[in-house]
């Protein structure tokens, strides 16, 4: 049962990402500002920090699977998120060994990982030719709002799930 809970939560977040834009006021969505919900990634970051031990890589494996799923369902260009998410999660995996795991550190790690993910997405999409955008425009209109919005999402999720994740971790991986 507890093995199924992660795919279930991630799948739910994936579906919600598609509806997220309806919930924002239209003045925000119709402006030039692009806010991208990275909810799946945020949950995976929490998983990497609080569920995975130093030797397990569950978050990265889920990152591959759900990255591919996002590619299939939302972009149609396969491999982009499937590469960007695990790459970011691997960095999280390294960072967590060096840093303490509390709320402020989690926020910093999340900022770094969304930064890395967005840069990777920009890199891949601009090589492929899907977007042509100046770096300044990208930073102001996409990167900053996205990071801010996702941090807002991170805080409630952090408060709700970290204790459970740590409990499951010691139950399932502690042996």
């Amino acid at each position, binding site marked *: 049962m507890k093995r199924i809970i992660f795919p279930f939560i991630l*799948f739910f977040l*994936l*579906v*919600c*990402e*598609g*509806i*997220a*834009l*309806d*919930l924002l006021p*239209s003045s925000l*969505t*119709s402006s*030039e500002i*692009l*806010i*991208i*919900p*990275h909810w799946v990634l945020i949950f995976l970051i929490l998983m990497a920090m609080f569920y995975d031990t130093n030797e397990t890589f569950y978050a990265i494996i889920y990152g591959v699977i759900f990255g591919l*799923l*996002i*590619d*299939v*369902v*939302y*972009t*149609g*260009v*396969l*491999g*982009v998120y*499937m*590469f960007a998410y*695990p*790459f970011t999660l*691997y960095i999280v995996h390294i960072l967590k060994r060096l840093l303490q795991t509390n709320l402020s550190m989690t926020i910093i790690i999340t900022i770094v990982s969304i930064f890395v993910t967005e840069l990777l*997405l920009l890199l*891949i*999409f601009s090589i*492929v030719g*899907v*977007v042509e*955008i100046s770096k300044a425009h990208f930073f102001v209109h*996409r990167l900053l709002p996205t990071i801010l919005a996702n941090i807002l999402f991170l805080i409630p999720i952090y408060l709700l799930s970290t204790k459970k994740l740590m409990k499951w971790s010691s139950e399932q991986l502690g042996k």
Partner: protein
Amino acid sequence: MSFFRKKSLFILLIGIILLVVLVGYSLTSRDKLSAPEKFLMDSVGWMQNLIHQPVTFFVDTFHSFDDIKNTYNENKILREKLAEYKTLIYEVQEMEKENEELRKTLDIVDSPRDFEPVLANVISRSPERWLEQITINRGTKHGVRKNMAVMTVDGMIGKVTSESNLTSTVQLITGFDQLNRISAKISREDSDNIFGLIEGYDKEKEALIFRIIEQSDKDLKEDELVVSSNMGGLFPDGLPIGTIKEINPDQYGLTKIAYVEPAANMYEINQVIVVNRALETTDNIEEDEEE
């Protein structure tokens, strides 16, 4: 430790190779999605359908509070319009009758203006905003095919790029590029129609780029309606696309570029209509012959 480093480097390399292969595969102009992709689209689409309904209900009730405030003013305007429409309806009916009779005499059954509509709900919008895609809850099972035009009540919003059994993906016109052009025209009396192509979307001006390929004697005016044309062979004739906002000469000064403001709102899309040209396109006829 060095072994571990080597291993992760190795995995990274495999990852990059996989990325290149998959991106290459999905960007080649393939006609249909692979079976696993269709399956995933269908199963996610089913979930989206389930979750989307209560969410839209919630959002709609929220919006309706806003609407109540404007009701009085809107009602006034609508009443005036209704009076105009009554006379219009009579005229249209007469014209339709006449048109049908004339067609019969000429032996033309299908006109490029005819289309078969499929009604659909939007179940999700791609969180990757660069791509400007939405997913609708109708697929091959309901008769939706690739390259069909998609519109709302106000006007055209995009075309179907891929379809699975129960859902399909729609590329919005604001995300169109050079490879996805729409042939369009400005309708004029005396058959002096101005033809051109919608070539993309200017994000700074928030308008579609409409390049005129055929120069008409008359000059363009602002606020003129741009509609789709059947010349491209994909879309039915006469779907409204938008109104002209600004006119500029192109960089060589030979033709003109008009900036067209889309008629439909691209951000609040709930119900859409997928339209299929009733008139058989050359592609369809070829396919039929092969069968």
